[in-house]
């Protein structure tokens, strides 16, 4: 059994799918010896490493930086897994597509503000919002889709275990959209 170099990435999601990873509870301790978490919100690495075996992605793509970043990460990941409905379909993160970014920003930073000296929405240092939030597979190739809102922790566990043991797994029996 070889140690998997694992990265987890958090894009435009609510962190619920990352919390579901922690919801493995003691099983996290069980699989920890077989994985090397090389990049994740839970560790302090700032640069995406090379030769990652599996990158798990939570959330949809919603800024220009997301797009640039995910392409670079795809190049350095042997496998990519879309974790949860936001990564797979856009889900709640894409609900703002019904209105478009400008209208949504206007509501947040002009209507609902007591002080806004520039009378504009934030644009310095912060990345630019895409006008349409996109699911992961629209921009990069995705190897596995693990739906759910969030993906149930059992499904994440079974998936990781199968990868560690190098066997195939039928993920359809483990989860479904919106669960």
């Amino acid at each position: 059994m070889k140690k998997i170099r694992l990265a987890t990435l958090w894009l435009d999601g609510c962190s619920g799918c990352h919390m579901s990873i922690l919801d493995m509870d003691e099983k996290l301790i069980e699989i920890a010896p077989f994985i090397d978490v090389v990049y994740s919100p839970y560790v302090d690495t700032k640069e995406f490493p090379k030769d990652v075996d599996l990158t798990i992605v939570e959330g949809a793509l919603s800024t220009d930086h997301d797009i640039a970043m995910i392409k670079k990460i795809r190049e350095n990941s042997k496998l990519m897994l879309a974790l949860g409905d936001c990564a797979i379909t856009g889900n709640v993160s894409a609900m703002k597509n019904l209105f478009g970014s400008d209208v949504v920003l206007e509501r947040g930073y002009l209507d609902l503000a007591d002080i806004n000296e520039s009378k504009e929405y934030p644009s310095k240092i912060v990345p630019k919002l895409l006008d349409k939030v996109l699911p992961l597979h629209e921009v990069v190739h995705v190897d596995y889709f693990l739906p759910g809102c969030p993906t149930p922790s059992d499904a994440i566990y079974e998936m990781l275990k199968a990868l560690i043991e190098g066997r195939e797994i039928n993920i359809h029996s483990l989860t479904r959209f919106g669960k």
Partner: protein
Amino acid sequence: MENRKIIIDPVTRIEGHAKITIDLDENGKVEDAKIHVTQYRGFEKFCEGRIYTEMPAITARTCGICPVSHVIASTKAIDKILCITPPQAGINIRKIINLAQIVQSHALNFFHLSSPDFIYGFDAPKEDRNIFKMMQTHPQMARDGINLRAFGQKIIEELAGKRIHPTGIVAGGVEHKIEQSQKEAILSQIPDMMKIAQGALEFFKTNLHKFQKEIDSFASFPSLFMALTNENRTLEHYDGALCFMDSEGNILKDKINPQDYREFIGEAVEEDSYLKSPYYKPLGYENGMYRVGALARLNIAKTCGTPLADEELKKFKALGGGKPVLNSFYYHYARLIEIIYAIEKIEELLNADETMNENVKVTSKISNLRGVGCSEAPRGTLFHDYQVTKDGIITAVNLIIATGNNNLAMNAGVKQTALAFVDSKNITDGALNRVEAVIRCFDPCLSCSTHALGIVSSKIEVRDHNKKVIQVIDRN
């Protein structure tokens, strides 16, 4: 030398990503430092046009760490619109679920995210500063953290149907009564969980002396504090009225009905962050900085109302010598006391006869066209403000998210810490880790309001005042 800028991006081991910039002046001294929250999710707009019954399920998705807080604030807003009060059992069950969330969320911050700094020190190699390393070197502590968090998560799952984005809290109360077997299962775990919580507090206190410089410089300054509190000023997370206290301990204003929050809280927009900056309106934007969350709650509360937590509260209050505790490093301390409180309170509520009543929900029709729901999330006071048509279609939404309330104080804290630790001639990983750690004190939940992320880079860019990169420091 020209003005330069250091950028830490992304900030890690916080719930949500952010970016920090540190500006240097001509002499290379720290001039300013800021935290930039770099994404905006737009709930306040896209909820318009939805039917009000969908709001708890949609707004839960602002945050996977504290979905319970959103569901509670959301259903409380709807309770107001329907003009109903849940039956006592319904309220008690909501409270138990809310406290369970405080346990899991505080455990997450302490064990999974912050304790690597306490165990290995802020200057430890960055490969070591995480929970996975802890599993190897401190397996019992890692296991304890996982178990304590799981205790909270399992209560949420049992009583509200699902650990993350639970469906069991609804307008008018909760969906299901508590079964005797559920009650017993939870109660049976309490002694073990209390032991873990007390052990963590003991560990923290015995190690405190190592962090005097951090205690003095991690957002340690006067500010106002805001929290919900009840009539006797005992600790409150579910209900009560808003209270503002100043840094001397004077009550500026209390007994504020949360429905009137807009008279007291203003929101300012800065051009370089998607996170707005709330302030106490009567004092204006400049002077109205306040802090919320565990530190604010314990400063405002006179007592916790449970024996073990009250003993600890006394010792905690002694740190301020009769005045509020102003050091944000003690947020960690305050959260550990709140875990003890929450465990005691869960036990007390489960043992109350009223909690087991079968009547857990009432229903009604729309009577008000606006409702504000307010509760104490793990990170501080949370507001959901909805307007509806008489057919129940949402026409306007305003959310003030717990973490947002701390935005001004977090920024002031980042600057203070950068001034104390960052030496532009020798920029160390330990110094930059501390600048991130001050944010971790507040336990920000940036996914809530906006959810943030930046360019993936371990590189710290030193830039001149024209934003031109003149030097790159690689943290690897």
